[in-house]
């Protein structure tokens, strides 16, 4: 079933008004036929069809303005003998551009208000003089500024230091204590603290756990990676991310938010990928539309995201768009992770270490490389049965890695 969408006719075209349909339901259309006219700020355009088929349904009447990508009509391809030249199976015309609905408004995490600053009378002082005063342990209040508008300059500080030394004759100036390093983490630490405590306060967590045999998945991955140069090698974590995205198709209610006591399931699958920062602290920016990405695209997106996270170049959308978070502590040798959900999301998937463990199967005992996958979920939005369906689907996808 093909979809005919409002085409983008120019780099700066946001929307178009459908002026007139040139076809009606039941009409046969071929590649290259003009099936509608569209009005944009640049003028009237004849819009070309790209898929052979039969018009099933016109979804938008003449005269309405819709954003680029909106589905205008449905075409079916049955009843059409394939043309002599095979129709080029180029990408489906209808790109599933997520309808530009208003993203649900997410309340900003509370940040404690800044304490009011009492404003002492500001003494103008040159930066160099301020630094020198600190080095020489000279009190700024004690210096008379000789610069413009009474500004304090190096000369003033040097003179004050001389006077102080002469007056006190104390043994050597006091050692300037080492300025304590500013803890740049404090901002991030506060934000994490606020989110986590709100999560525990408001979200009734339930936890589910399952152990997944990773042999098939890892064998597949090792095979795939041998075909690729090391630069394009795919990490096991990427396989797990893709499996989570695919499993969510079975239980879409785990992919979304709980806001104003309403469960808001999201259509696009944006996985929050927990990345640890070397100096401590953790950020879980979103990888968008993981369900639409191939393994190679997902690996590239992950690599780009980690690099930009570590260099502090994240986009605001990546900080707020995650619809579910995945935390993978496999590197640190932890078997099981019972994670805390990032509000307002309604679920969090955790993966522990991939390790060799004894495995019993149809009466035989063997050794398999396994991983423990856990689901923390918000009991207001889903219940254990749906959670276990998700984990079961996750396991099934990892047993058929080729389809990921």
């Amino acid at each position: 079933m093909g979809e005919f969408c409002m085409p983008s006719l120019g780099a700066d075209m946001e929307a178009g008004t459908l002026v007139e349909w040139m076809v009606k339901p039941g009409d046969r259309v071929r590649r290259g036929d003009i099936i509608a006219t569209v009005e944009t700020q640049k003028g009237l355009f004849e819009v070309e069809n790209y898929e052979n088929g039969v018009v099933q349904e016109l979804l938008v009447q003449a005269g309405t303005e819709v954003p680029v990508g909106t589905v205008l009509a449905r075409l079916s391809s049955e009843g059409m003998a394939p043309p002599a030249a095979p129709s080029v199976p180029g990408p489906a015309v209808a790109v599933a551009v997520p309808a530009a609905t208003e993203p649900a408004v997410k309340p900003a995490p509370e940040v404690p208000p800044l304490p009011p600053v009492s404003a002492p009378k500001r003494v103008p002082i040159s930066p160099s003089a301020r630094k020198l005063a600190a080095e020489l342990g000279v009190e700024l209040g004690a210096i008379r500024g000789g610069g413009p508008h009474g500004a304090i300059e190096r000369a003033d500080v040097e003179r004050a230091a001389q006077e102080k030394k002469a007056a006190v004759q104390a043994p050597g100036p006091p050692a300037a204590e080492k300025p304590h390093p500013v803890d740049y983490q404090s901002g991030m630490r506060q934000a994490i603290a606020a989110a986590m405590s709100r999560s525990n306060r408001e979200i009734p967590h339930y936890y589910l756990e399952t152990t997944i045999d990773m042999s098939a998945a890892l064998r597949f991955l090792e095979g795939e990676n041998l075909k690729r140069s090391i630069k394009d090698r795919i990490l096991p974590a990427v396989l797990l991310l893709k499996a989570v995205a695919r499993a969510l198709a079975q239980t879409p209610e785990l992919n979304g938010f709980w806001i104003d006591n309403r469960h808001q399931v999201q259509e696009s699958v944006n996985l929050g990928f927990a990345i640890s920062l070397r100096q401590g602290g953790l950020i879980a920016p979103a990888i968008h539309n993981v369900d639409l990405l191939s393994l190679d695209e997902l690996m590239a997106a992950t690599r780009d995201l980690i690099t930009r996270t570590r260099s502090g170049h994240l986009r605001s959308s990546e900080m707020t768009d995650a619809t579910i978070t995945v935390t993978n502590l496999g590197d640190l040798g932890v078997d099981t992770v019972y994670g805390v959900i990032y509000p307002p999301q309604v679920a969090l998937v955790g993966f522990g270490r991939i390790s060799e463990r004894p495995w019993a199967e149809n009466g035989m005992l063997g050794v398999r490389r396994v991983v423990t996958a856990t689901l923390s979920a918000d009991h207001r939005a889903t219940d254990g049965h749906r959670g276990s369906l998700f984990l079961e689907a996750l396991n099934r996808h990892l047993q058929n890695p080729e389809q990921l």
Partner: protein
Amino acid sequence: MNGEEQKVRTTYREAVREGIREALKKDERVFLMGEDVGHYGGCYATSKGFLQEFGPERIRDTPMSELAFTGAGIGAAMGGMRPIVEIMTVNFSLLALDQILNNAATLLHMSGGLFNVPLVIRMATGAGRQLAAQHAHSLEGWYAHIPGIRVLAPATCEDARGMLWTALEDPDPVLIFENQTLYPMEGELSVSAGAVDIEHARVQREGRDVSIITYSASLYKALAAAETLAAEGVSAEVIDLRTLRPLDDATILASVARTHRALIVDEGWRSGSLAAEISARIMEQAFYELDAPVERVCSAEVPMPYARHMEQAALPQAETIVAAVKRMVHANG
């Protein structure tokens, strides 16, 4: 003689001419192209006698088509030559700015690294000869804004003689600006003078109280100002930038860290000038070394007038430099 290098008297013009001549002799891919470079011997006589010595193939007079012969220089460079394009003055280079910006500076990056443009373009620049507004621009700062090209401003005979060869060896386009008032300037060159580095600025005069940062013809006004200030107990350091892109931040910042004051002298107009860029970099990277705001002495923001007294009033002068430094240093009352 304590084995000190044997020196010879010369002029800036002669040094430029020798630089071109040496390049033409050392590499047969090198050729000179521009208006009146051949039969006329060069508008500033920097290629006098070359037509006879090297012939019309390598000393090419061009029609008055700055855009086309500059573009031809770019094409020839891509075709394996090492052209020296002479645009008579920066004032006429505005016609060729499209080729310089959209082709020369951009091709390597836009083609994903496929094509280099090993081209040198020389232009006269600056005011001071009563040539009035259309022939007295100082637009090096514009070109120093463009990623993909290098911009040089030789102030001394040594640099006028030695920068060209290093520029010709550079795989990327290099622009060399020669202030027209410098051509008759006398100076000394060692007999074995040759190629010089084009990456670093140079401290021309050491000092403790202020760093005067400048380039090209303004260098000599700054040195004159420094002498006057010395007599009044103010020790001024003078830095010759030599390269306007990339700027040698290290030398600039090291100097400011010593003197805690910076004055930039730039013949361009103040707004959006190269001086503005240098001032911003000092504020960004040496803020805690500053004991006074960074000052700038630039040309007055007027079209350059013809009358001599008016033109001199518009241009940076040693006196204005001295006044600015005094303000910064004696601000202490």
